[in-house]
């Protein structure tokens, strides 16, 4: 993301603080043992340390869900809001304070079900933020209901005989929306790839949407089992403009060189296959960012009063 970090705070003075990963640790994470959210939290703390982001200028925004507890576990500013409504809040924050680094953390129900309308429009606005979809294919916090990304005929408490619909594909859905500028997929159980993807998303200028396949040992353990155990299932999308983790090809032999500027290819690659493709599907920094389009020079109270008096003149009798 763009860096205004110190502009407001440091006012010229060099900020000599150094931050370690621990400096970003908030409350003790209360996810289940083996929950994929833990490793995402770690990767994020590593990223912030690597980028030396100022805790006070970083905001994590979330909805409601297991995944949405994320901000509580970071030692930054956080907004744990309403189920499905993280993106409008994050958009408002960036509109008022473009200099802040904003990360939005959502679950699959949060983002793709109740939040779907905001999701589509956040992609359009292309506000400069990182938007993470922690996708465990299930409603976790409410104890196991079918989500839009639940695989066909996978059982849940609301659909005990198995999900009635094919899973929604968050990648093709995102890629179908005009102004999509960054679309990536990664998995929480390959830390190096997860980290590099978060990093790429962070450095992207615009709305960086990352779908993270996330294990939920409680409700969807079996779903990612194979993908976790057999490297053969994974296919790496590699490119200099995307994510290219050195040496990862040694473990995951299926690789595909894909230029993320190619939208049609991205859409085709995003279609479901028996492989799990991870990497950056699409990336285009040429697209305008809403908060830039709307940015205005600051006005002092006096300037406003002066201008408003001129305005009132127009209405004088």
């Amino acid at each position: 993301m763009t860096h205004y970090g110190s502009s407001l705070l440091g006012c010229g003075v060099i900020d000599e603080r150094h931050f370690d990963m621990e400096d970003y640790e908030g409350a003790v994470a209360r996810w289940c043992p083996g929950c994929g959210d833990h490793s995402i939290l770690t990767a994020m703390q590593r990223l912030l340390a690597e980028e030396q982001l100022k805790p006070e200028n970083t905001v994590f925004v979330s909805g409601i869900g297991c995944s949405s507890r994320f901000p509580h576990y970071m030692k930054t500013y956080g907004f744990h809001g309403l189920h499905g409504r993280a993106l409008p809040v994050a958009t408002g924050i960036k509109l008022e304070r473009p200099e802040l680094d904003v990360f939005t953390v959502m679950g699959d129900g949060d983002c793709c079900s109740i939040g779907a309308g905001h999701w589509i429009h956040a992609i359009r606005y292309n506000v400069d933020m990182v938007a993470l979809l922690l996708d465990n294919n299930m409603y976790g916090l409410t104890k196991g209901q079918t989500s839009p990304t639940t695989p066909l005929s996978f059982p849940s408490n609301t659909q005990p005989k198995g999900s009635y619909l094919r899973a929604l594909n968050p990648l093709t859905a995102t890629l179908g929306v005009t102004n999509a500028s960054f679309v990536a997929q990664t998995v929480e159980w390959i830390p190096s790839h997860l980290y590099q993807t978060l990093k790429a998303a962070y450095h992207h200028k615009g709305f960086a949407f990352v779908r993270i396949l996330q294990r939920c040992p409680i409700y969807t353990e079996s779903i990612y089992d194979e993908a976790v155990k057999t490297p053969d299932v994974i296919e790496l999308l590699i490119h200099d403009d995307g994510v290219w983790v050195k040496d990862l090809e040694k473990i995951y032999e299926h690789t595909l060189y894909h230029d993320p500027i190619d939208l049609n290819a991205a859409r085709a690659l995003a279609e479901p296959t028996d492989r799990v493709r991870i990497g950056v599907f699409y990336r285009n920094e040429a697209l305008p960012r809403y908060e830039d389009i709307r940015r205005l020079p600051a006005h002092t109270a006096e300037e406003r009063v002066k201008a408003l008096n001129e305005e009132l003149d127009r209405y004088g009798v």
Partner: protein
Amino acid sequence: VATKTRTSRKKSTRKGDKSKLEIISVPETTVEIVSDSGEGAQKCGQIFGSTCAKMGNGAWTVEIIPAEIQPPPRTKTGGSGNRVRFGTEVISNWGDATNLVVAFNEQVLLGRIELDALADDAIVLLENVWKTHPDESIQQEWKEGLEKIRAAGNYRIVEVPMEEECLKIVEDTRRGKNMFALGLLAWICERDLDLIKAQIAHQFRKKSQEIYERNVSLLNAGVAWAENNLDFRISVPTVKSDVPMVVMNGNEAIGMGAIASGMELCSMYPITPATSASHYLGEVYDRFGGVVHQAEDEIAAVGVAIGASYAGKVAFTITSGPGLSLKQEFLGLAVMLEVPLVVVDVQRGGPSTGLPTKVEQSDLLAALFGQHGDAPHVVIAPATIEECFHVMVTARRIAEAFRTVVIVLTDANLATGVQPYPRPQLDSRWQQAPINLTPIPADKPPYDWDPRTGLSERRVPGQPGGEHTVTGLAHDEWSKVAYDPDSHQLGCQMRSRKIAVLGSTLRRPEIHGDESGELLVVGWGSTKSAIDEAVDRARAEGHSVSSTHLTFLSPLEPGLKEIFSRFERVMTIEINYSDRRDDPYITPENRRRSQLAVLLRSHTLVDIDCWSRVPGQPLRPCNILKAIKSRLAVGVGV
């Protein structure tokens, strides 16, 4: 309906001799111009209205809006135009009835008559091209229409060959009649032609000089025709006010008030009748560093506003009933997080989509109680267009100082009504302070509630050492999720307490009329002026009645019970639904009462009666007067 004009005209010497010009001199009069939509009556009415204001009259202009998107020509429901009530003194409501109307066809006139818009002795100027229209059926309609009109009241009907006259100047009279009509009215009401021309020039500033001139000659033609053919003029003395005045509608006032308060973001989703406020801001806001964000829906609109408020500066969202319903969940969140937020609800007819363009006051209880759970917050209702301006400054201040949600309830009547009012003397201290990024000491909790007042200091991202996560879950002063009984009880208590503290700073409402008596009428919002006017008339007739008007609905202003106790009877008058006392199945026990009455009965335990209607129109002083008298007629406690 009886009117001042009539009485005063009686006084003026009437010879019945055409050569002699009758001057109807009155303290106030009400003028209407109504046409098929697309014939420009509204433009004409607006210019006439602001001319009155600029000449120093008190004036109130309301729109006459057709029901349909595109009504068919020459239909009763298709009428479009304006009503302008103007007088020597301040005028703050649309009054009882029209004394002078210019109608472009007999059908739209009939529509107005059926809505009981005309005074019984109104003067009617009626385009008569239809009389001789090639289409037989139209001639027939005209004949029957005129009979109906004559039967409806003792109108003084003057047929005007508008078409014929305008054709002398333009081919397409649909684009010209309105200026001719304006000329008629200008002459009759002795309006300042230079002021009118100046406004025509402004209206057509983007058009060619030629178009301007054509409109002016149409105007002059109207003046000339009136001069040569009419034997009366209406004279409403003007007294230039000593304070500078501005003239605008309530939504423009809301917009300017938002600017005056220093709010930088209006996050909205279009909905009638709120949208025009964002149209206004869309035009000018960026000159003040302000942004109108049109969100994908009302939920996102309030979410963006909350995000911006959380991030530093109080933002606002503006909507109407259906949008209020959609925002309820987010309002509860803002209350819980103690993020300041201003919400404007420009009320319209409900329930559901209801009457999108019409006035109603039926969102009061939803504004007060619509959020699930216990979510104390502030609700304010401006009563005049001037208050629409100032309420935004107050609302932003309260939202910030008390870290809470402030809902501002206006309505379609204020939103579209145009009125001159004293120009606000702007103060840069009304503007909210720049974002404060001073570091936070480690031992200071994000909710450092003062246990007595429930107040705490606002904190925004960027303040070093202040890192914390706000949450809609029950939480303690450190904003940590806390489900234990004490934490939740304390949080609820602190959020309620600060509203009581705000209440303790309020003044008791003023009484219009005697401090005690037989009947007190209580109102809120846009009905103030109509109620006060009705009360004045009742008092003039010797009745013992007073009125009071509430600006704060939550917290309520102090002293209400004591005030009510000084009157034998208390009743609210509102534009929302209540069962009538004599309806079948309705008992004093199960009667559905109007919304303020429900609130005040609970608050004061006084047996507060109500008179309310949902006509989709502002209330008329004369109808309020009737209600007052009939209430005085029945015994106490009935």
